[in-house]
């Protein structure tokens, strides 16, 4: 892919709750470190230019396109990938037809779970705006939005859930 880069840099970060040390090239993308160094291949590459959201991961609590994050900028930080998601959180998305070919799904799930973890975002943002960074060519989006809305409703009704 790329020609050999300059000397590698040793960094430490926390991925899915586990501290890890990796040796990365200075311009390595977090996406590639996750997939090819750490074998966390659930995160997918789509466009590679920050448009499609397929590579979405959560960095220090905020969703980012891992194709646009230099891995070295993740030093000392927390990264959550699709591998950290409890499958039980996906039932509403599955029921509503939020996935078809699956290329966008890991990113969609990461964004959707981030919204589920921060339901107060719905006070200022519509679900469509919150999910606008995840392109999907199959579902027409209604399945994704309906599934997320249902999951938000369900989590509201769980005992101990806030307002």
């Amino acid at each position, binding site marked *: *892919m*790329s*020609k050999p*880069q*300059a000397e590698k*840099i040793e960094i430490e970060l926390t991925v899915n709750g586990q501290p890890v040390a990796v040796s990365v090239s*200075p*311009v390595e*993308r977090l996406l590639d470190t996750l997939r090819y160094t750490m074998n966390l291949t659930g995160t997918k590459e789509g466009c*590679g*230019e*920050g*448009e499609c*959201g397929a590579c*979405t991961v959560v*960095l220090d609590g*905020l*969703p*980012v*396109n891992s*194709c*646009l*994050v*230099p891995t*070295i*900028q993740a030093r000392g930080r927390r990264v959550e990938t699709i591998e950290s998601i409890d499958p039980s959180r996906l039932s509403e998305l599955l029921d509503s037809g939020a996935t078809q070919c699956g290329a966008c799904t890991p990113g969609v799930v990461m*964004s959707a779970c981030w919204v589920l973890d921060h339901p107060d975002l719905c006070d*200022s943002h519509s679900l469509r*705006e*919150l999910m*606008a*960074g*995840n*392109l999907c060519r199959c579902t027409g989006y209604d399945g994704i939005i309906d599934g997320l809305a249902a999951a938000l409703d369900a989590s509201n009704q769980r005992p101990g859930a806030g307002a």
Partner: protein
Amino acid sequence: MKLLTPGTVPEATAMLRDSGGRAKPIAGATDVFVHWPVRVPADDEIFIDLSGLAELRPHRWTDDELILGALTTYWDVITDPRAAEEFAILVQAARTVGSIQIQTRGTWAGNIANASPAADGVPALMARDAVVELTSAEGVEQVPLDAFYLGYKRFVMKPDQLITAIRLPRRPHHFESFIKVGTRRAQAITKVGVAIAHSDAGWRIVANSMAPTVRRCRALEEALDDQAPLRSPNDFTPLLTRDLAPIDDIRSTAAYRLGVLARVLYHELAPVCGSVGPSGAAS
């Protein structure tokens, strides 16, 4: 290709100086990395990663100013309720940038330094009379944002200078609005954009994607300040062309851009500006 990771601003500015101005600072990397891996950096390129400069991240409020740090992201401003109250135009503009995944990484200072004519953050900052703080190993300089750009991708910032803050005067506004016209609402580059602000300091009309740089429409600002009657969108066109020079490109045409901007401005201003409208106040 070399990557430097300073821990303080003086270290970073020393690195910029020592590189002979060749080093390129990286903040959120959303512009720098977008070309990767198609455009692998040349072997002799030097990057300075600013992400270790924690002091540049937070924005802060003083009695007179909102001060954005060089690493303050769009999301930092979007999620500050005080910004929504006092600088609604910044929040409005920030929410049109890419998507949330971009807003959490992209920085206001990066938007200025990337110098795209289509930058969405810059018009909002310029409409609020932002001043850019430039720091080098030699010292600190304050440059008004509306005097920052010299031409397409050219600016007064010298290669050894780093944007370290963006200062915005806190001033009550009677009206402000940011309008972006793109192919779709999210993840689109602006075809026509405009930031409109009105305070006791006068009108500010700042357009993006309408000239080689983001630019104030000073002739129109003056006409509004003088309450010159503007009875239809067509009355805006000759004023706009005194400051703007839109082009035909892959996203749009010059004629479409000018036509849309005139109509957007007319429709935004007619309800709030007595001199704009079919029976605009005679002068």
